[in-house]
C-alpha cells in the first residue's frame, strides 16, 4: 500500500506579517495579557497543587481486585475458573481444592493475580457467577522491586473483601 501524502503548504505571509514587527508586538501583547490575567486572578491556570489538593477520582476508577466473603469470612469464590478463562491478559491463576462441606464443595486453594499482566478491564468481575471477585476497591497497585512481588495472593485479595448482599448457592428455593 502506498501511503497517502497530503501536502500541507505554509500559508503565504501578508504584508504586515512579513514585516515581523507587528507579529512581534502581537506576541508581546498575548504574553502580556496572560501575565496580567493570571497574576491578578489566576484565570487560565490549570495547575492542581497536587499534594495539597487532589483531583477527585473518576467514578469509573476500579483499583485493585478483591475477593468477597461469605458470612463466616471464607471466600465466596468457588474456583469455577470463569474469570481466568475470560481474562484477556491471562493473569489469573487458580488452583481448586475440595471443601469438606459438600454444600460448598469447591474452593480455591490458591488464587493469584499477576498485576503486571492485569489490564484492569473488569471482565473477571463480569464473568463471576458468585459475586466473588470484584474490581472496585479503589486501591492503587503499589510499585514493587521484583516481578514476583506483583503477584497478589488469596490472603491479599480477601483482605479487601467484604460480604456481598446476594445469597450464595441459590439454596433458598
Amino acid at each position, binding site marked *: 500500500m502506498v501511503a497517502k501524502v497530503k501536502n500541507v503548504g505554509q500559508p503565504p505571509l501578508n504584508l504586515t506579517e512579513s514585516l515581523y514587527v507587528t507579529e512581534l508586538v502581537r506576541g508581546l501583547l498575548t504574553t502580556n495579557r496572560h501575565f496580567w490575567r493570571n497574576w491578578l486572578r489566576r484565570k487560565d491556570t490549570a495547575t492542581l497543587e497536587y499534594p495539597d489538593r487532589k483531583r477527585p477520582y473518576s467514578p469509573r476508577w476500579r483499583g485493585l481486585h478483591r475477593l468477597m466473603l461469605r458470612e463466616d469470612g471464607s471466600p465466596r469464590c468457588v474456583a469455577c475458573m470463569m474469570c481466568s*478463562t475470560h481474562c484477556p491478559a491471562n493473569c489469573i491463576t487458580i488452583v481448586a481444592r475440595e471443601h469438606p462441606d*459438600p454444600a460448598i464443595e469447591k474452593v480455591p486453594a490458591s488464587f493469584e493475580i499477576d498485576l503486571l499482566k492485569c489490564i484492569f478491564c473488569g471482565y473477571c468481575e463480569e464473568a463471576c457467577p458468585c459475586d466473588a471477585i470484584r474490581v472496585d476497591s479503589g486501591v492503587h497497585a503499589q510499585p514493587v522491586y521484583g516481578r514476583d512481588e506483583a503477584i497478589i495472593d488469596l490472603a491479599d485479595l480477601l483482605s479487601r473483601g467484604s460480604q456481598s448482599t446476594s445469597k450464595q448457592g441459590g439454596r433458598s428455593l
Partner: protein
Amino acid sequence: MPVLTIDSRQVEVEAGTTILKAAAKLGIDIPVFCYHDGLPVAANCRMCLVEVKGAPKPCPACEVQVRDGMEVLTQSPLVLEARKAVLEFILLNHPVDCPICDQAGECVLQDHYFAHSAGPSRIQVRKVHKAKAVPIGPNVMLDKERCINCTRCVRFCREITKTSQLAQVQRGNHTEITVFPGRQFDDPYSLCTVDLCPVGALTSRDFRFRKRSWLLKSIPAVCPECSRGCNVWVDVADGQVWRVRPRENQAVNRWWACDQGRLAFRRFEGQRADRALVDYAPRDATRAATMAAAATAAGRLQTIRSHGGRVVLVLSPMVSLEEGYAALRFASVILGEKLVLLAPRPDGTADSLLRTVDANANRTGLAKLAGLMGFEVADLGGFFASPAAVEVAGLLSVGAEYPVPPLPPGAKMSQAVTLSHCLDPVADKSTVLLPIPAHFEKDGHYVSTAGLVQRSHQALPPAEAVAQVHSLLSEMASKMGGTLGFTDLPSVRSAALSLAGTGEGSHA
C-alpha cells in the same frame, strides 16, 4: 425395505431401524440424554420426542422403529414445545451449580438447554435437595442432585460389565442413583460411567477440580497398559496430562476403557528420568549433557567390544515399533548380535471386556519385527538362568519397567546401559541411564494383541534433556564407528513399517 419421510426428506433403511438412526442417516440431529449407541434403549428421558403423523402423541425417536410410509417431523412446533417442556421438567430439581461442576463445558444438559430452551425457571417451591459429593467408589464421585435419571450408568453396569453395582432407588422426584448398602462401586470400568453420564452427577475423583474441560486439548493416542491397544484421547493442558478418555474404535475397544489404563499416566509422576545418570551421578538437565552421556556409554560399550566382550540387547515390549526397530538395528549393525532379549512386564489380570493378560503394549509387534530382522528372540529371565549369560559383559536396555532377574553366578557383567523414561529398579542397576520420552511424549506405532497396527500421537513435549531413542542410538553408533542408516523419526518409521509390510490400521 421401508421408506419413510423425515422432515419432508425420504430415506430408505433396514426394517427394525429406529427413527433416531434413520434421522442420523439423513444428518438430522435429534437431541438425546439417555440414549447411547453402546447401551440398550431405555427411552426414559423423553428428550428425543418427535412427531409421527397419525400417532396420538409424540414418540421417542430412540425407541420407535420405522415403518414403511412413516412421516416424521423433528422440527414441528409440537416437537419444539415437547423438548422445551422436557428440559424444564429435567431442570426442575437440578441444582444448576455449573460453576463448581466438573462437567461444565462438556455437559449435554448445558448444550441442550442453550439449544432448545434457554428460558428462566418458573419453579416457585423449594427444590428437592439430595446428597452431594458422595464418594461411591475408589474412582467415582456421585452428586445425586445433578442426576437426571437417564440410567445410562445403571445400564452400563448391568449390560456391559455385568457387575450391576449401581441401581435406581426411590420414586418420583426423589429417585436417585446409589450403590448397594455396604458396597463400593469398584467396577474396573467404573470411570466409563463418568463418560456416559450426560451431566455432572458422576465425576472422576482423580480428575475432580483439577482442570476445567474447556482448557483441555485432546490428542489421539493408544493406551499402553495392556496388549489390547485401546484407543484413547489424552487431555492435556499446561504441558501436563490431566485425563485419559476412551476414543471410539469399534474394532478394538468400542466406547470403553478400563480405570487402570486411564490412570496409568500417573504411574511415574515424581520419578521420571529427566536427565542422564552416569555411574549414578546425575548430569545437567540439558540435551547436550544427555548426548555427552550417550557418548560415554558408547565408549564403554566399545571398550567391551574391543576386548571381545559380548553386549546383548534387552528390549522392553512397551516401546514403539520405531524405537524397537532402532534398537534392533543397533544390535545387529553395531553390536553384531543376533539375539534379542524381550523383557516384558509381569502379566496382569484379564477380563471378558477389554483387559488382556499381557501387560505389554507392543509384544506382538516387536516379536514379529525381531523375527523379520533375523533375530532370535529370548526371554530375559530365561536367558539369565542359562550358562550363556555368564559370558555377557554388557547390556543395552531399551525401555524399562521390567523386573530385574538375578545375575547368574560368576557373571562378567560390567556395564548396563539403559534407555528409560523412569527411575525404576532397572535404572537403579544401570551404570549409564539415558532419558527417553514417556509413552504420551512420543509419536509411535504399536501392534495390539489382535495384530492391529495403531499410531499413538505425541501429546506432550518431553523435558529438555530427554532424547528420542533413535537419536541416542545414532549418536552412540557414530561414536562406535558405525551408522544405522536413518536420521530422523520419519525415516525410522518408514523403515520399520515397510519391513513389517504394514501401515497404520492394517493387521501385522
